[in-house]
């Protein structure tokens, strides 16, 4: 296991952020930590990248202990944080060469690698422009390129596409996909089930500082059913009646039901409602979202 952690705990003041996280990543695989804001994703990444010290627990990366051998850990990993960590007033090329030099590549090796990465990430045209003129998507790509300069063995991506528009997100996914095919080990955090689904071999769902589920995307989806039906009601009384006869998760005037996605099932649901004198205002059906995963896993 190239990344291994057991019993990670961390509190900031009275707030317990991690309540005992175990995880492991196989070399060459992609693990996604999926969870809402405040679940402890970033803290987990910061511990594994030596930036935060856990209150308890152990972790190794590439066999190096994150607490006792931080320098060795840093030399084999890279971190791309939630906010693009790039110098706005340097050009793309200058940013890359700088990081190459700080990773102790020689001057010419740093320049050569910079050229390769600019090319790989489609930034060659913009390489001599200051980063402040870059779009959000270009910044993230540059940020990722900076992380790759010394060919790290493990890449940590903390919410790599949060805040990006759909087109930039898709470009970013392609770039990450490329790395995955190249056999790089990746640990990424995300709030998007779709992102975890698309990129990761294994997903761990993190909620309130603990792991609530582990598995492939398919495993998780089957845990909550393939499709969801959402029924919206005009008032609380109707909702109560409906939740009395149907097995689902009730929300704000909403009842959320697992479904197999067939018309027959939808028909059956509506029949049951009609027989009980309940008329939903709206009916919709959708693929499971992160919300559904959470509702299902934490209900």
């Amino acid at each position, binding site marked *: 296991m190239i990344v291994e952690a057991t019993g990670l705990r961390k509190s900031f003041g009275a707030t317990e952020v991690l309540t005992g996280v175990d995880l492991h990543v196989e070399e060459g695989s992609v693990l996604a930590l999926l969870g809402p804001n405040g679940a402890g994703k970033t803290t987990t990444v*910061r511990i594994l990248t030596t930036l935060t010290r856990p209150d308890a627990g152990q972790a190794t990366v590439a066999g190096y202990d994150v607490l006792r051998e931080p320098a060795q850990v840093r030399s084999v990993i890279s971190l791309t944080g939630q906010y693009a*960590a790039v110098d706005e*007033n340097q050009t793309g090329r200058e940013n890359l060469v*700088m*990081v190459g030099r*700080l990773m102790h590549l020689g001057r010419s090796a740093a320049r050569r690698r910079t050229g390769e990465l600019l090319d790989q990430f489609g930034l060659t045209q913009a390489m001599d422009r200051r980063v402040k003129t870059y779009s959000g998507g270009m910044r993230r790509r540059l940020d990722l390129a*900076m992380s790759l300069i010394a060919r790290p063995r493990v890449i940590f991506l903390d919410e790599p596409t949060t805040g990006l528009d759909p087109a930039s997100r898709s470009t970013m996914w392609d770039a990450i996909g490329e790395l995955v095919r190249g056999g790089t080990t990746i640990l990424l955090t995300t709030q998007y089930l779709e992102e975890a689904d698309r990129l990761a071999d294994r997903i761990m769902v993190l909620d309130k500082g603990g792991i609530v589920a582990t598995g492939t995307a398919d495993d998780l989806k089957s845990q909550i059913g393939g499709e969801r039906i959402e029924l919206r009601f005009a008032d609380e009384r109707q909702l109560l009646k409906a939740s009395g006869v149907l097995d689902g998760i009730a929300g704000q005037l909403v009842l959320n039901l697992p479904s197999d996605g067939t018309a027959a099932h939808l028909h059956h649901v509506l029949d049951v409602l009609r027989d009980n004198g309940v008329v939903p205002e709206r009916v919709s059906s959708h693929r499971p979202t992160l919300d559904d995963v959470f509702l299902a896993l934490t209900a």
Partner: protein
Amino acid sequence: MSHQGAAAAISDTVTMIDRCVRLMRRNVDTLFVSILLPLLMMALFVYVFGGAIDTGTEYINYVVPGILLLTTGYGASNTAMAVADDMTTGMIDRLRSLPIRSFAVLTGHVTASIARNAVSTAIVIAASLAMGFRPNAGPGDWLAAIGLMLLYVLALSWLAAGVGVIAKSVESASTLSFFMLFLPYLSSAFVPPETMPSWLQPVSEHQPITPVIETVRGFLIGAPPGNDGWIALAWCTGLLLFSFTLATSLYRRRTSR
């Protein structure tokens, strides 16, 4: 790892200096203000207030050393904003997750500060000569004055770096610049302390800027600095040791987990 020890430390520091100097050159606003502000102050004091202030000498000869210290004090304190900018954006995490020497980040900013102050000081000196400043210092006096100012800038830049490390934002880090802009007024920079109210005189005479100004003034307009020279040297050295220790240990604490 092939790059260990001193060679890596030097290489990291050089890379960070390179970065900070480049960022500073491109941060045109700050650079512009840190040159323009002292020039305006000098013009204001020489042409507007100067006539009303009696220092027993040509006023411009009296005030230029004060302006120089204001220039460097303000310039050095801007380091706090540059450091705070790194500390409050994602940049510090990127830098920290690299296997680099921890102080290289601060050393880069401090060195850039010295370069920036060298430029602004040279411009202010050139302007003052054009406005009628007539120093009668020999090369040795100039060297001594420049050496002391360098030490002063170095000490203040490290202090500013420390402030930048703990500042919650770039805006709060800029408070130091304001303070450093104000402090020279309570020194012998613009008026002789003897003309101040008696309760203010001890403050003015014993604050660190006064002996530094007096020494630079002594070197430049040809009065031997005497005791002030040693007091200034002691202040600057002490401040440097204090600031360096403060900045590096705050940095370690802020960036330790």
